């Protein structure tokens, strides 16, 4: 974003960056930056909080008064909560299906409600919602020793498939929780630590690493710190 600020400013536009990494913005010295120590992915800080978002914008726009390059700090810090989100997962029947497949099917109604309410989904990069159970079934087999080179994944691209699966779960989960919006990364934590789908994905990721698949194929299947 700081790179674009330099480029746009040179073209005669006045810019303000909402910076999310202070060290980076200090080294790149864009014309005007408001450093906001908020959860990454939430540069305006709080979803569904118009007053807070407005305040961030007002702080940012105030920097247009500066007569020289400036980096300012937004006064409030928001730390991503590490507490898991309290979201139910479907009861499993202990049937013939892998638990992750049964679970994904059980979340379908919530996913469909989310889609109907929002009018758009970010699932569909390489597989759609109908394809999530079949993709999970392959990841389940990978995690149990199936060779990834001989057991093809629908959608092929491991990173994209995993983003689609995670997004399917996250969009469904947001239909199942009450109360204020979950904090930063709480939904991510729920997915990777509380669901069969998340555990299946992580097991498959480990299996690919152990089978010496190319680094990007498995590493970016999940956040780096996991």
């Amino acid at each position, binding site marked *: 974003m700081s790179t674009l600020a330099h480029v746009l400013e040179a073209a005669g536009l*006045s810019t303000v960056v909402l910076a999310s990494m202070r060290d980076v913005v200090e080294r790149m010295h864009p*014309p005007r930056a408001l450093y906001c120590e908020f959860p990454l*992915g939430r540069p305006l800080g709080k979803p569904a909080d*118009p007053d807070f978002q407005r305040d961030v914008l007002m702080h940012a*726009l105030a920097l247009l008064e500066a007569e020289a390059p400036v980096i300012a700090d937004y006064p409030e810090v928001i730390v991503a909560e590490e507490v898991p989100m309290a979201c139910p997962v479907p009861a499993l029947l202990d049937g013939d299906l892998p638990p992750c497949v049964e679970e994904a099917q059980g979340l379908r109604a919530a996913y469909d409600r*989310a889609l109907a309410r*929002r009018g758009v989904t*970010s699932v569909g990069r390489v597989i759609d919602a109908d394809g999530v159970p079949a993709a999970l079934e392959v990841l389940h087999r990978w995690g149990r020793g199936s060779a990834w080179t001989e057991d093809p994944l629908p959608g092929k691209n491991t990173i994209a498939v995993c983003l689609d699966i995670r997004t399917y779960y996250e969009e469904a989960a947001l239909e199942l929780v009450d109360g204020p919006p979950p904090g930063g990364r709480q*939904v991510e934590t729920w997915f990777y630590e509380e669901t069969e789908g998340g555990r299946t994905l992580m097991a498959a990721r480990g299996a690919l690493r152990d089978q010496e698949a190319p680094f990007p194929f498995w590493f970016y299947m999940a*956040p780096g710190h996991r």
Partner: protein
Amino acid sequence: MSGDQAMRDLAAGMPVPEFETTAFTTPSVPLGEARVAIVTSAALHRPSDDPFTATDTSFRTLAAGDRDLMLGHWSPNFDRAGLAIDLNVAYPIDRLQELADEGVVGEVAPRHFSFAGNQPDTVAEIRLDSGPACAAELVADGVDVVLLTPV
């Protein structure tokens, strides 16, 4: 360690593009008369657009009225749920319209622009190609002020 701290620590140790000087354009009109656009690196796009590829250096155009937007960013390393809850948490288009309605800013630009934050380290394409192309579109729209939002 939290995912956000891990990413901030990682970024702190990475090389960044060097700019010897900082271009600085003083707004030519007061904020209350300025036309304002948003440029985001969240890789937002309309379902009908070409999706972003994993190394996409180009941008997508968002009309001011677009709300049904997909999150096309390829990184798993940030919170994606916030955007699913409220587009404005990374693309504050409704907040900007409210500020225009109140006269705090002059008006909302007709078009806004979206890049993918996962760029090659040199960001050469953005510096030399797609960035200047985006700037030309903004200038053509008579934009005065650009708010840049990352994810």
